[in-house]
């Protein structure tokens, strides 16, 4: 524990976070759900009742029971265990895709906004044309080119989402680059990469954090779509999307199999969106009261 800070200093980060969560129940709810999900994913090998790929032919399409809380699938695999394992894959996939789009989108946006002129003009047109593609369709095409599989699928989603971040960062950078403090470090002869990294980036980061949170929800839905279509995760591994694909094939025999993965996708996407909207209001004072 550190000594109490004088009142004049801005409150510490943990305190700011606590205040935000106390004021906005949506944010707390979303963050709490996601942390719980992350914890379950990390502890999956220890808390899942069965192995996610263990087949028990006496349990095929077993209804929910004490042995199988959520029943079992068409190969007699425990649905709860697969749901826990699939959540791991789905979350990993979402973070991978959004990580890739941040790695591409943030530098591109910084460069376009900071350099301006014909560089900006060119990059902006490229961003415009990428944004004209229906996202999932382009992701399907990129996956088809790279080869099917979860990692390739998420690289595709990352590439497709990158222009959204680039556009946002560019717009913020246009404002920040004319601020006095950026002008002054430029006058002191600081190299451009250092100006971008140390002075411009930190001042564009808040809207980026918000957008990344919202993109995580979109990436989760994109992963579910690609895996549902057979372009994402490959058997015997499971993600929530591929579990829905199996449930779809057996919809007439065991319709209840489609509820657990669908509800988890819905709740997780909802949690990311709630967190993102709550962050937007907390980080952007002009949004207060909306």
């Amino acid at each position: 524990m550190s000594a109490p800070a004088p009142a004049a200093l801005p409150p510490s980060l943990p305190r700011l976070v606590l205040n935000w969560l106390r004021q906005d129940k949506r944010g707390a709810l979303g963050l709490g759900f996601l942390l719980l999900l992350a914890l379950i994913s990390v502890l999956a090998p220890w808390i899942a009742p069965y192995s996610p790929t263990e087949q028990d032919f006496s349990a095929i399409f077993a209804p929910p029971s004490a042995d199988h809380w959520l029943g079992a699938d068409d190969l007699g695999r425990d649905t709860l265990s697969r749901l826990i394992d699939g959540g791991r894959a789905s979350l990993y996939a979402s973070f991978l895709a959004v990580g890739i789009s941040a790695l591409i989108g943030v530098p591109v946006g910084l460069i376009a906004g900071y350099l301006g002129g014909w560089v900006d003009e060119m990059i902006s047109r490229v961003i415009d044309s990428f944004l004209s593609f229906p996202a999932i369709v382009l992701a399907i095409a990129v996956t088809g080119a790279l080869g099917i599989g979860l990692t390739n699928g998420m690289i595709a989603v990352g590439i497709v989402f990158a222009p959204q971040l680039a556009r946002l960062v560019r717009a913020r950078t246009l404002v920040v680059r004319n601020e006095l403090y950026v002008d002054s470090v430029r006058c002191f002869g600081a190299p451009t990469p250092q100006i971008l990294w140390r002075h411009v980036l930190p001042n564009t980061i808040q809207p980026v954090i918000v957008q990344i949170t919202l993109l995580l929800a979109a990436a989760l839905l994109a992963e579910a779509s690609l895996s549902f279509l057979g372009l994402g995760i490959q058997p015997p591994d499971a993600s929530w999307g591929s579990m829905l694909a199996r449930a779809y094939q057996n919809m007439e025999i065991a319709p209840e199999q489609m509820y657990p993965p669908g509800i988890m996708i819905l709740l997780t996407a909802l949690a990311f969106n709630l967190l993102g909207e709550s962050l937007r209001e907390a980080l952007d004072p002009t949004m207060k009261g909306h």
Partner: protein
Amino acid sequence: MSLSRNGRAIRRRLVQTVPVVILATFIVFALLKLVPGDVAVTLAGDNASEQRIAEIRALYGLDRPFLVQYLGWLGNAVQGDLSRSLLSSEAVRDSIARAFPNTLLLVVMALVLALVIGIPLGVIAASRRDGWLDRAFMAFASVGVAVPNFWLGMLLVSTFALRLNWFPATGAVPLSVDPGSALAHAFLPALALAAGGVAEVMRQLRASLVEILSSQHVRTLHAKGLSPAAILWRHGLKNVSVNLLTVIGLLFNRLLAATVVVEAVFAIPGMGGLVVNAALNRDFPVVQGVVLVMVLVVVAVNLLTDILYSTFDPRVR
């Protein structure tokens, strides 16, 4: 005077569209560059004959420089030749011509549903701001944005098609053959597609109405004794209808994306099934053809909404 200024705005918008379209075609062609290894060998598949590999090499002109390949492909595409499927050797243009109407029917129907359901809910939410109905509708909108469309489609099929037998479960009927049956087949998938659109329309409409209704101008009308309903109708909705145009342009792009997955659930032979099967089998001419047509449709719709926007909105004019 104002008409010529509007004409100039439209011309500027048209000029801006040109580089976007050219870049989009380049992106579509450059997808080929993402194929790992020797493109011809990879696309030909396992155990392909030397002759087959040579055919594919010739199809894309793979031994020539990249830019020459692109221009050759673009030249053909401009003339409406999108090459042939590597699997069925059917002309890609014919496959798309058969699939596109099914997809378009779904997207248009979903758009109509999104507006028909979303507009009244948005108006009610805005006129009862912060009341329990407003909160309930906004919570509903949050769920609408987060729900996977294809899962909603599965729920609808299992309930309304398999259990209750109200609607056909799968397939599509061309509108020209039997309009009634075509609409019945398209209803459930369009409803599944519309969920996110309903939420989007509701949120946008509520936000812009709330802004207008709390303005000075509207407060004056209140003071003059105009009834709330008249204010909402004459001054709120009239101003908001222009914003809706932008939402429609945006929605069209999203619906065109989401329909790809929803079509799979309802086994509709549309653009989705075409592109997914092609991607699974690395049937690249089909992948490129579908993506190209879809992006051109999106650009055209955005152009159209922008032109309408500048025609109707006095501020832009």
